[in-house]
């Protein structure tokens, strides 16, 4: 399919909490086949925008659509069923499950084995589990984590936990992949692995959006960048355009002066 129809679009997305306007009427057009960056200072509303797109928050105004189909009013699980998945800024792995099982949950929506196989050792359920386990191991290996499947998330350093989250998001071959600060807490080598893995994921059908504070990463992998400040876009364009935009420079220099 062509890039324009497979886009994730939002028009006039407005969100407020108790009178505080968090998103002030945003238009987005996240295209398939590209990596889109979403940057901005702390509290700009990046995570809130993700939450609106995935259905965790219901914006007061605006429309959201994927591939021309409206998503408004659909709960998160229904959007997940259309392949719209995300990772979380604050790692949300289940401590009771192993790393491999956590990643397998990225495939939960594709499972078909019924309740009977949940309680009895029937071939259907066993097959499902081994298929999901194999896919999870492959996703972990792609992100440079081949040997941690049997560990529990709490035993891993924070950087690796984040990679496990990303593995969970990509394992289900999503059509829209939204990553919220995937490189936070990663060391240099891990960031490099991540960068390579993200580049490898690019495909003509995949919409990929990355929220990230690591500017080197953003500038190197993104095709287009949206810059958000106080719930409004101050710039949209290629890395070069954004880097030379005076408003963007002001925002980032301004926040540098604060520190």
């Amino acid at each position, binding site marked *: 399919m062509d890039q324009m129809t497979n886009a994730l679009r939002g028009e006039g997305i407005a969100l407020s909490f108790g009178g505080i306007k968090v998103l002030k009427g945003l238009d987005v057009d996240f295209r398939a086949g590209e990596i889109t960056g979403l940057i901005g200072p702390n509290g700009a509303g990046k995570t809130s925008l993700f939450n609106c797109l*995935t*259905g*965790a928050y219901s914006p007061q105004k605006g429309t959201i659509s994927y591939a021309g189909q409206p998503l408004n009013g659909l*709960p*998160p*699980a229904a959007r*997940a*069923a259309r392949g719209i*998945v*995300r990772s*979380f800024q604050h790692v*949300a*792995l*289940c*401590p*009771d*499950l192993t790393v491999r*099982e*956590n990643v*397998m*949950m*990225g495939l*939960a*929506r594709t*499972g078909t*084995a019924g*309740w009977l*196989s*949940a*309680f*009895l*050792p029937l071939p259907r*359920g066993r097959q*499902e*589990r081994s298929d*999901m386990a194999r896919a999870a191991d492959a996703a972990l290996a792609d992100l440079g984590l081949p040997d941690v499947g049997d560990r529990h998330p709490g035993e891993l350093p924070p950087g690796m936990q984040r990679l496990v989250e990303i593995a*969970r998001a990509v394992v*289900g071959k999503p059509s829209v992949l939204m990553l919220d600060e995937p490189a936070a807490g990663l060391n240099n080598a891990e960031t490099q692995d991540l960068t390579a893995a993200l580049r490898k994921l690019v495909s003509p059908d995949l919409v990929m959006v990355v929220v990230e504070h690591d500017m080197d990463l953003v500038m190197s992998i993104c095709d287009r960048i949206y810059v958000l400040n106080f719930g409004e876009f101050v710039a949209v364009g290629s890395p070069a355009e954004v880097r030379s935009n005076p408003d963007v420079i002001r925002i980032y220099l301004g926040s540098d002066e604060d520190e």
Partner: protein
Amino acid sequence: MSDQVSHMPSPPSALSRLSGLATPGVTAVVLVTLLLFLPALLGGSWTFTLGLCFANSIGVLAVSLLVRYGGEVSIGHTFFTALGAYSVGVLDTRYGISLWASVPLALVLGVAFGLLFAWPSRNLHGIYLAVTTLALALAVPEMINNFDGLTGGYEGLYVATPFLPGVDMGAQRYYVALAMLVLVCFAVARLRLSRQGMALLLAKTHPAAADAFGTRRVWARISVMGISGGVGALCGATLAFSGSTVSPGGFTFWQAIFLLVGSVVSFYGLSLPRVLIGGAFVTLVPQLLSASGAWIPVLYGLALLGMILIGHYMPRIRKALNRNRETG
């Protein structure tokens, strides 16, 4: 610093090699083998009590399931045990139908009422849900007495139809309970490996993440209530058969509390050894203490406190023991 120490491989001692062998599966097999031969060593009354122990263990498991997979506490599970017990009791005394048909009926009713209860209470959590389950427990004795045409009211019902005709009834009451307990524990262990079970665990710890990967919170809550209700009803069915009588006295509000206490005492464990501890606590402690008259509640409380404190300090005790072993 301390991290490095704990990551150092310690030389394998005979003890650790032995405990390496004791996987949950092996432990369960050894335990079941022991329990299979126990009636040969024990008198009839102990065999009877142990049968009740197994039945109560299933009830404890039902409560622990709700905690472990749903993150919720129930103080009303006698509703489900009563449902299962009266399924067995009524089919047996009124129609002469044995466990072959009454246990499946109990399971279906338990699951159905678990789902029915879960739907209106799906958005309640913590103490609010617990209080709602309390209402269930309080309603049970009233309902039993209201339908006394069917339930036999205060006098109750006597379950006499054998499961396997021609086999000694005393032995049946023991071995059926043991078999039910083992089957339920096995099914629950399978659940942990299933897609549904894993989704429930994720929904418990990170509902937003579960949602984002296609597991609705409401689905999770309703499913876990259905499962817990079904297991609760199996507990009741087993209690009815192994205890031979079904009467309102077995399904009081206090009994619901005891089930929760048994679950706490077994640290919400779902494995066979753990639920047996809980079931034993529910069955034996009141019996052992009944000789002490007015002191029952106090001693019960102390016994409970003791168990919980041991559980609380267990990790530290174990750590201290390990340190001694490493340095010594």
